[in-house]
C-alpha cells in the first residue's frame, strides 16, 4: 500500500512539475489571431492584418475639453511638441503648420511629376491656354491675393491642383492655430502610434505617454493655477486597453467574490480547512494540465484560453465535493471508488464528448478551449480518483451532511409523490412552451455581429464617432486594397483603381478616395508625365499662342519655362524624397509591406456627412467590372461579421455533433435506450428553457451562450447520472448524501457563474446568464424527472 501510495503521489508530482515547465516556457499570444481562422482565406488574412497592424489600428484621437480655447491651444502645442519627440509615435498632428515649408518645397519642386493634370494635351497651346485662363480666373477670387506670387513660376496652377489632390477630406476648423471641433468646444490632436494597435501593452504605454505629455503641457501652460482643461482619448488602442482592463478587473473582482462565497459554503459544509485545501487540488492540477496541453498541441496559448478555461473546468470542483461527501460512507473512500466513481467517470466522459466537439472548430480560440477543457477535466478526475484518497490523513472527517441530505430527499419525495405523473406532463409543457418561444424568435435568435461581444460601451463608440467627424477622418472601415510584389506594382494598381473609382466619385456615390499614389505616383506615371514636358523652345512657342488673348505677358513666364526645363532633367521622385516632410507619414500609413508582399490601401470616404457609409456593393461591382488585378474592397465590419457568423454556424453544427457523441457514449455505457432518454431529458429541457428564457428576455444568443449550453450539459450530466444511478440501484440510504453533494456542488456552480452575470463584460455576462440558471434547472429537472418511488414506500 505504501509503495503504491508513494508511487501515485510521486508520479502526480512529476506530472505537475512537467506541466509547470511547459506552462512557464509556453508562448502566450494576446492578439486577434485567436479570431483568425486556422486556414484563413486571402481576404480574411488581409482583414486581420488590417485590424492588427493597419493604419486604422494605430490611430489615437485626442480631445482637450474645458477651460478657454486659448489655454487649450497652448496645451495642444506643448503636448504635441513633447509627443513628436517620442519615438513611440510615428506622427502627431494638431493643425500646426510645422513642416509646412519643407512640404511646400517638396510639392513645388516636383509639381510636374506629382500633378495628375499633366498629360499630352496639357502643354500644347490649347492646354496651356485653358490652364492659364483658369489660374487668372482664380486670381480674381479672394484667395487670388495669396496665389499671385506663384503665377510666374506656376501659371498652370499645378501646385493648387496637387494640394486639392491631397486634401480631399473635410478639414477640421483651426482656432488659435490648432485644430478644434466645429463648435469650438474641443481642441483636437491625432497621434499615430509606431506600434500596431494589437500590441495592447505598447498601446497602454503610448496612452500613458499621452497622459504624461498632457500633464506636462498643462503644467507648462498654467504653472500655478489648477487647470480646467481635461484630456479625452479615443480610438482602437484606447478601446483595447480599456477592454483588457475591464475584463481583468471584472474577472478579478468576480472571482474574488465568488471564491470567498464558494469557500464559505464549502467550509460550512466540510468544517475542515484541510478538506477545502485538498478539494482545490483537482482543479489546480486540471488547469495546469489544460494549459500545458494547449501549449503542446497548438504551439502557443491564446489569452482568451487562459481567461475562460478556468470557468469551463469549474465542474472539476464538483468532483472533490462528490468525493468528500459521498465517501463519508466508507473508510478512505473505498465504497465511493467502487460504487460511485464509475458514475463520476461517465459524467466526466460525457463532458469530454461535449467539449471534444469544439476541437475541430476553425476558430482557434474555441479549439483551444476544447482541448483545455478535455485535458483539464480528465486530469482533475484522475487526481480525485487516485491522488486524493492517498492524501487523506488517517481519521480524516468532514462535517456530516446527511441530515441536510435527508431533508432534501424528503422535499423531493414530497414534490414527486404529490406531483406524480403531473410533473412529467408539466415538463412536456415547459418543453413545448420553450420550443414555441424559440420558434417565434428563430429569425433573430442568434446574433451574428462580432460587435455584440465587444466590451466597448455605446457611449464610448458615440464619442469616438463624434471625434472622427470633428476631424473629418476617413471612414477607415472601407478600404480598397491593391496587392503586389513591389512598391511600383501596387502604386500602379492604386492609380488604376483610383481612376476607376473616379466614376463613382463623380456620380456622388462615394466621397473621395485616398491613395498612396497621391503622395508618390508610380514611376510609370512619373515617366509618362515627364515625357510630355516640352523642350524650352516648343514651350515658348506654345505659350506665345496660349497667352495671346489672356493679357499675360510672355516675359512674365520665364521662370515657368525654366522650371519645366529643370523638371525634364530631374530624376523621378522616390520614397526617400518624401523623408522629412509630413507627407511621409501619410504615404507610409497607406502602404503596408512584409518581405516582398506589398499592399496599397485606398480608404474610401462616404459621399457626404449625412451618408458616412460607403456603398460597398457598388464599389465591388465596379472593381469587378474593371477587371483590375489583385484589387478588392474590404469592408471590415462586413468581413469580421461574416467571419464570426461562420464561426457561430460551425459551432452550432459541432455542438450538435457533440450531442450525438454524448448519446452514443451513454448508449454504449448503459445499453438501455429508455434510460439514456430519461437521462438526457432533463438536460435538454434545461438547455431549452434557458435558451427560451434568454430569447423571451430579448437577449440574442452569441457563441458564448453556445459554450454556456455545452457547459450546462457537461455539469448537468453528472447530476442526471447520479440521480439515475441512485434510482437504478435503489440505494435509498445513500441517496441522501448523494443528493446533498449534488446540491452543494450546484450551489457553488450557481454562485460562480451567477456572479458573472453582474459584470460589465458582454462575454462574461453571456456565460453567466446561461450557465447559472441552466445548471440550477438541470439539477431540479434531473431530481424530479429521474425520481422513482422509494422501495420502502413502494412495497407498502
Amino acid at each position, binding site marked *: 500500500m505504501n509503495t503504491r501510495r508513494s508511487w501515485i503521489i510521486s508520479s502526480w508530482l512529476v506530472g505537475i512539475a512537467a506541466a509547470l515547465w511547459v506552462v512557464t516556457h509556453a508562448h502566450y499570444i494576446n492578439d486577434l489571431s485567436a479570431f483568425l481562422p486556422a486556414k484563413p482565406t486571402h481576404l480574411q488574412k488581409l482583414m486581420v492584418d488590417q485590424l492588427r497592424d493597419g493604419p486604422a489600428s494605430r490611430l489615437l484621437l485626442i480631445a482637450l475639453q474645458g477651460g478657454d480655447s486659448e489655454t487649450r491651444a497652448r496645451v495642444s502645442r506643448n503636448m504635441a511638441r513633447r509627443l513628436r519627440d517620442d519615438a513611440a509615435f510615428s506622427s502627431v498632428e494638431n493643425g500646426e503648420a510645422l513642416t509646412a515649408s519643407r512640404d511646400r518645397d517638396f510639392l513645388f519642386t516636383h509639381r510636374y511629376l506629382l500633378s495628375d493634370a499633366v498629360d499630352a494635351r496639357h502643354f500644347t497651346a490649347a492646354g496651356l491656354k485653358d490652364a492659364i485662363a483658369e489660374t487668372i*480666373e482664380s486670381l480674381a477670387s479672394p*484667395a487670388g491675393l495669396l496665389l499671385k506670387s506663384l503665377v510666374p513660376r506656376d501659371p498652370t496652377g499645378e501646385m493648387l491642383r496637387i494640394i486639392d489632390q491631397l486634401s480631399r477630406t473635410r478639414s477640421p476648423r483651426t482656432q488659435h492655430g490648432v485644430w478644434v471641433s466645429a463648435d469650438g468646444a474641443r481642441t483636437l490632436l491625432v497621434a*499615430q502610434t509606431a506600434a500596431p494597435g494589437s500590441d495592447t501593452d505598447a498601446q497602454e504605454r503610448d496612452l500613458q505617454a499621452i497622459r504624461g505629455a498632457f500633464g506636462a503641457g498643462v503644467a507648462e501652460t498654467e504653472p500655478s493655477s489648477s487647470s480646467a482643461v481635461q484630456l479625452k482619448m479615443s480610438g482602437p488602442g484606447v478601446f483595447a486597453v480599456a477592454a483588457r482592463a475591464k475584463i481583468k478587473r471584472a474577472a478579478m473582482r468576480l472571482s474574488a467574490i465568488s471564491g470567498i462565497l464558494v469557500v464559505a459554503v464549502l467550509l460550512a459544509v466540510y468544517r475542515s480547512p484541510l478538506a477545502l485545501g485538498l478539494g482545490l487540488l483537482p482543479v489546480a492540477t486540471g488547469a495546469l494540465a489544460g494549459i500545458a496541453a494547449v501549449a503542446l498541441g497548438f504551439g502557443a496559448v491564446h489569452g482568451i484560453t487562459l481567461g475562460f478555461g478556468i470557468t469551463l473546468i469549474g465542474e472539476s470542483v464538483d468532483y472533490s465535493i462528490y468525493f468528500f461527501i459521498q465517501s463519508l460512507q466508507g473508510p478512505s473512500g473505498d465504497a465511493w471508488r467502487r460504487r460511485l466513481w464509475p458514475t463520476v467517470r461517465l459524467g466526466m466522459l460525457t463532458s469530454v464528448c461535449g467539449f471534444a466537439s469544439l476541437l475541430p472548430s476553425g476558430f482557434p480560440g474555441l479549439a483551444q478551449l476544447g482541448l483545455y477543457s478535455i485535458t483539464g477535466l480528465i486530469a482533475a478526475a484522475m487526481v480525485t480518483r487516485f491522488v486524493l484518497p492517498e492524501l487523506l490523513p488517517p481519521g480524516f472527517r468532514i462535517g456530516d451532511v446527511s441530515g441536510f441530505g435527508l431533508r432534501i430527499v424528503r422535499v423531493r419525495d414530497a414534490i414527486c409523490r404529490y406531483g406524480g405523473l403531473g410533473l412529467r406532463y408539466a415538463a412536456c409543457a415547459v418543453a413545448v412552451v420553450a420550443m414555441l418561444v424559440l420558434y417565434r424568435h428563430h429569425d433573430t435568435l442568434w446574433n451574428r455581429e462580432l460587435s455584440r461581444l465587444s466590451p466597448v460601451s455605446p457611449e464610448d463608440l458615440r464619442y469616438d464617432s463624434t471625434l472622427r467627424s470633428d476631424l*473629418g477622418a476617413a471612414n477607415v472601415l472601407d478600404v480598397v486594397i491593391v496587392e503586389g510584389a513591389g512598391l511600383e506594382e501596387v502604386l500602379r494598381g492604386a492609380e488604376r483603381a483610383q481612376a476607376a473609382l473616379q466614376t463613382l466619385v463623380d456620380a456622388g456615390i462615394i466621397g473621395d478616395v485616398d491613395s498612396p499614389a497621391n503622395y508618390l505616383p508610380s514611376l510609370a506615371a512619373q515617366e509618362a508625365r515627364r515625357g510630355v514636358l516640352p523642350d524650352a523652345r516648343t514651350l515658348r512657342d506654345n505659350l506665345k499662342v496660349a497667352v495671346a488673348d489672356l*493679357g499675360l505677358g510672355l516675359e512674365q513666364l520665364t521662370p515657368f519655362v525654366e522650371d519645366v526645363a529643370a523638371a525634364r532633367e530631374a530624376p523621378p521622385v522616390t520614397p526617400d524624397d518624401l523623408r522629412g516632410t509630413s507627407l511621409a507619414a501619410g504615404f507610409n500609413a497607406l502602404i503596408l509591406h512584409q518581405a516582398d508582399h506589398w499592399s496599397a490601401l485606398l480608404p474610401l470616404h462616404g459621399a457626404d456627412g449625412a451618408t458616412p457609409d460607403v456603398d460597398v456593393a457598388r464599389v465591388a461591382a465596379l472593381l469587378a467590372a474593371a477587371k483590375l488585378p489583385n484589387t478588392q474592397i474590404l469592408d471590415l465590419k462586413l468581413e469580421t461579421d461574416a467571419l464570426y457568423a461562420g464561426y457561430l454556424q460551425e459551432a452550432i453544427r459541432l455542438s450538435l455533433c457533440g450531442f450525438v457523441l454524448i448519446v452514443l457514449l451513454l448508449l454504449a455505457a448503459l445499453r438501455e435506450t429508455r434510460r439514456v432518454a430519461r437521462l438526457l431529458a432533463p438536460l435538454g429541457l434545461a438547455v431549452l428553457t434557458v435558451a427560451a428564457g434568454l430569447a423571451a428576455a430579448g437577449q440574442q444568443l452569441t457563441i458564448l451562450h453556445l459554450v454556456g449550453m455545452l457547459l450546462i450539459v457537461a455539469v448537468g450530466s453528472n447530476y442526471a447520472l447520479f440521480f439515475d444511478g441512485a434510482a437504478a440501484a435503489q440505494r435509498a440510504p445513500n441517496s441522501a448524501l448523494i443528493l446533498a453533494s449534488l446540491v452543494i456542488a450546484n450551489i457553488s456552480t450557481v454562485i460562480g457563474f451567477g456572479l458573472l452575470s453582474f459584470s460589465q463584460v458582454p462575454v462574461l455576462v453571456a456565460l453567466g446568464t446561461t450557465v447559472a440558471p441552466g445548471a440550477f434547472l438541470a439539477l431540479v429537472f434531473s431530481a424530479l424527472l429521474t425520481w422513482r418511488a422509494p422501495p420502502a414506500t413502494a412495497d407498502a
Partner: protein
Amino acid sequence: MKLRVLGVCVSLLACAAAPGATSPGAAADAAGAADALDEVMHSLAQRRHGQVSFVEQQFLHMLKRPLESYGELIYDAPSRLEKRTIEPRPETLVVDGEVVTVQRGRRNHVLDLKAYPQLLPFIESIRATLAGDRAALERLFRLEFAGSEMRWTLVLRPLDAQLAKTVAEIRIDGLRDELSRVEIRQSDGDRSLMTLRAHSGR
C-alpha cells in the same frame, strides 16, 4: 493620415505674406474731422443688415488688362460678412467672427482669422466700417477722414509694419451710411477697385 495635408494647404495660403502680430491699438490721432467721422460711424452702426452687388476690378502688374469680377456683398451686424463672387468663377467667402469659410466648387475651407493676420486688413477694413466700429478700425489702421457726413472718404493705413508690407492703403468712399467704393492699394503696386451698388432685394 489625410489631415497632415491641411498644413500644406494652409501654409500655401500663408506664403504670400509672413504672419505678423498686430500691435495693440495705438490711438489714431485723427483730429479735425473727428466729429464728422463719429457721425458717419454712428449712422453706419444703425444698419443691421445690408446687401449690395459689387463689381471688382483688379489691376495686377503681371496682367495687361484688369481682371473683373462681380457678385454680392452681404453684411449682418455685428460681425458677419459674406462675399459671394458670381463671375468669373463662383466662390463664396464668409467671415463670421473669427472664422473664415471659403467655398469653392465642392470644397469648403475653414480658416481661423487669427491664424492669418495678413487677411485681416482686407476683411476688417470693410467689416468694421460697415459695423461703424471705429475702435476696431483704429486697432489696425491709422485713419484719415475727409469730406462730410453726406459724402465722405476714409483712408486706412496699416499700423503694423508686417501688414504694411502687403497693403499700402485702403480708401473707402461713402454716401451717408452706404459704402460706394473700396480701393485697396497693395505695396507691390497692384491695386483693386470695388464699386458697390445698392441691391434691389435689400
